[in-house]
């Protein structure tokens, strides 16, 4: 995170005296600070900006939250993967043209919740209540897990909270290469560092402010050497002229530096977004042609590529990954039963019926 990009820090009066608040302020010297009695005055500031979403990404709001853990909502009509999200930070300094947070978070500034003790208690209770099987949890749903990590060091707190909880796997999902704090601690077997990946041309045009492909893969390689498990998310996969060659090169690049054994899971998810994102994305990214492809409106109201196109994307990528013996690590994100079935018939060749439970879940 380029600290120069934070224009102002807003501190919720409720956490004025919290230790983490002081630590965050110390790490951002020279940035104007204002105490506020909640979120509304912060959001009001953005109304007059020609780009409120972009503006919200340059303001840091330090606050607290009542609860953190919730089941991943997935999407109606799709096959869920049993994931749980930890909403520790909200919003992201990166500016991806397709990101649903632009619309979903409604101008929420970069938000850091400092009441970690509440999260610790919630996690302890969660670890006791959830008795069966392996459960995956992650912080990458409403934020990038590592984008602000050099500031917050949330990763260290979380890894320590999960250490020894073998049935609970923590995923830290990112488009950054900010893993320095994680390399300074002992890795944990139930922690997976994962990266969302796209071809370099897409990163350059649609994922503003993120680490390049090479930087992400270099970070992943360092994580593997340090002893972490890693995961990759081809999400969103974009369909455009020349996509096959671009994704093929991307897969080759991965396996140049990452051994297949170090990879815990690979998800595939094609571009999808709620209708309300369309005007926001078109307004904010006039150069992008991402929204001008062929879409259908699915039953849950989202724009998606038509099923024949989605299946083509998944099959091709599945074959590319299978060439490196990674096919059993693949799962689809937010896809219908029909697409799962047709995908698995082709890629898994009948060896397994489904991705879940994962092979390591027994």
């Amino acid at each position, binding site marked *: 995170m380029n600290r120069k990009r934070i224009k102002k820090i807003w501190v919720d009066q409720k956490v004025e005296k919290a230790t983490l608040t002081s630590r965050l302020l110390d790490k951002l010297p020279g940035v104007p600070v204002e105490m506020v009695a909640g979120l509304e005055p912060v959001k009001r500031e953005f*109304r007059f900006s020609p780009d409120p979403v972009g503006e919200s990404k340059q303001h840091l709001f330090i606050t607290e939250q009542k609860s953190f853990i919730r089941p991943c909502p997935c999407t109606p009509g799709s096959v869920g993967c049993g994931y749980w999200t930890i909403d520790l930070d909200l919003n992201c300094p990166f500016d991806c043209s397709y990101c649903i947070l632009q619309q979903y978070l409604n101008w929420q500034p970069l938000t850091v919740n400092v009441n970690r003790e509440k999260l610790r208690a919630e996690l302890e209770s969660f670890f006791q209540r959830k008795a069966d099987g392996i459960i995956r949890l992650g912080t990458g749903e409403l934020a990038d897990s590592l984008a602000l990590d050099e500031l917050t060091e949330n990763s260290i707190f979380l890894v320590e909270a999960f250490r020894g909880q073998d049935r609970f796997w923590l995923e830290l999902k990112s488009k950054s290469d900010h893993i320095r704090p994680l390399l300074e601690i002992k890795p944990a077997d139930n922690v997976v560092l994962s990266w969302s990946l796209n071809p370099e041309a897409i990163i350059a045009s649609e994922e503003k402010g993120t680490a390049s492909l090479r930087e992400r893969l270099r970070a992943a390689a360092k994580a593997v050497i340090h002893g972490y498990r890693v995961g990759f998310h081809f999400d969103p996969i974009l369909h455009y002229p020349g996509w096959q060659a671009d994704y093929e090169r991307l897969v080759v690049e991965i396996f140049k530096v990452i051994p297949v054994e170090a990879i815990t899971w690979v998800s595939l998810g094609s571009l999808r977004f709620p209708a309300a994102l369309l005007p926001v994305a078109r307004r904010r990214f006039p150069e992008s042609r991402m929204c001008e492809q062929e879409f*259908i409106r699915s039953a849950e109201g989202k724009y998606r590529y038509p099923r*024949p196109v989605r299946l083509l994307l998944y099959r091709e990528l599945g074959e590319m990954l299978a060439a490196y013996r990674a096919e059993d690590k693949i799962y689809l994100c937010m896809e*219908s039963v029909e697409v799962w079935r*047709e995908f698995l018939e082709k890629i898994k060749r009948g060896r397994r019926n489904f991705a879940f439970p994962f092979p390591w879940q027994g």
Partner: protein
Amino acid sequence: MAIRLIKPTEINLEDRRFRFTFNPVEERFLRSVKHIGVLQPVLITYREGKPVLVDGWKRVEAARVCGLEELLALEIDDQADDAEIFFLSFSINFSRRPFSLAEKSLAVRKFHDFGLRPADIIENLLPDLEIPPEQKTLEILLEISGLERWLEVIHRKDWKLGTAELLVTFPQEERLWLLQLVEKLTHSQQKEIIENFYSLKRKTEKSLEELARDEEIGEAVRRLLDGKIEAAGMLISVLRKLSSPTVWRLNEAISDRIKKLELPSEISLDFDRTLEKPSLKVALEVDSTRQLKEVIKDLSERLARPEWDGIFELLHYVGD
């Protein structure tokens, strides 16, 4: 405020500085005015010594149509400035009914031109109008307000902000062309045509004029501009084909094979036009066990036709 009687013809209806509403005088209101006249006073003020209407446009119009000689009018002090008087006009109407997007845009334009600061419009006025309170929506509303006579079309068809936002991304000449093209259509047709042209234009980087050179688009456009509104369906179909070629092609091919099966009227086949479900729905309509047996037998015999496999292959097609 003083009350007086005024001749409807004395009011210059061309001076619309305080008008931002569009609803025309309805027949029922005219009938009421014919029977009992206009009981509620209109609101006027004076500019350069002449009466200017602030509120009561429909009442004055109805009075004129019905040939009333006089109307009750409340006079606002002519020392009050335009901004104060417009606020009064806006507030009176605000309590009566929700405004259309066209009316909202015109009200915002007038507040803006009468000197209300953009920040105040965003913070105080837009939330009252149930419009997202941000700079960009203010800009869109101001743009829309400049569409003059087309505002009435936007009002009548009850446009939403999203359609208006797309429209203002087109250059002025193209906006007017589009409005002329869709003027007489339903709002959903207008919306779909504008959205598809927007998307096609971005995808192909062609102007609307260039897009209209396409044979099929051109034909539908010519007919629509000639006032043949049934050509709207044709235009929408062509635009769908261009913006969604894979789905369109598969739909056509599946429908064609279903047609070739020449099924009797008791058997109907249907499928999900979005192609999300790769299955075929088979429906039988019978009114007796005997007929059901016959229809099933007929259907079984027809299963030897190669079109069936063709249909399922198309439903399971993978590709772009």
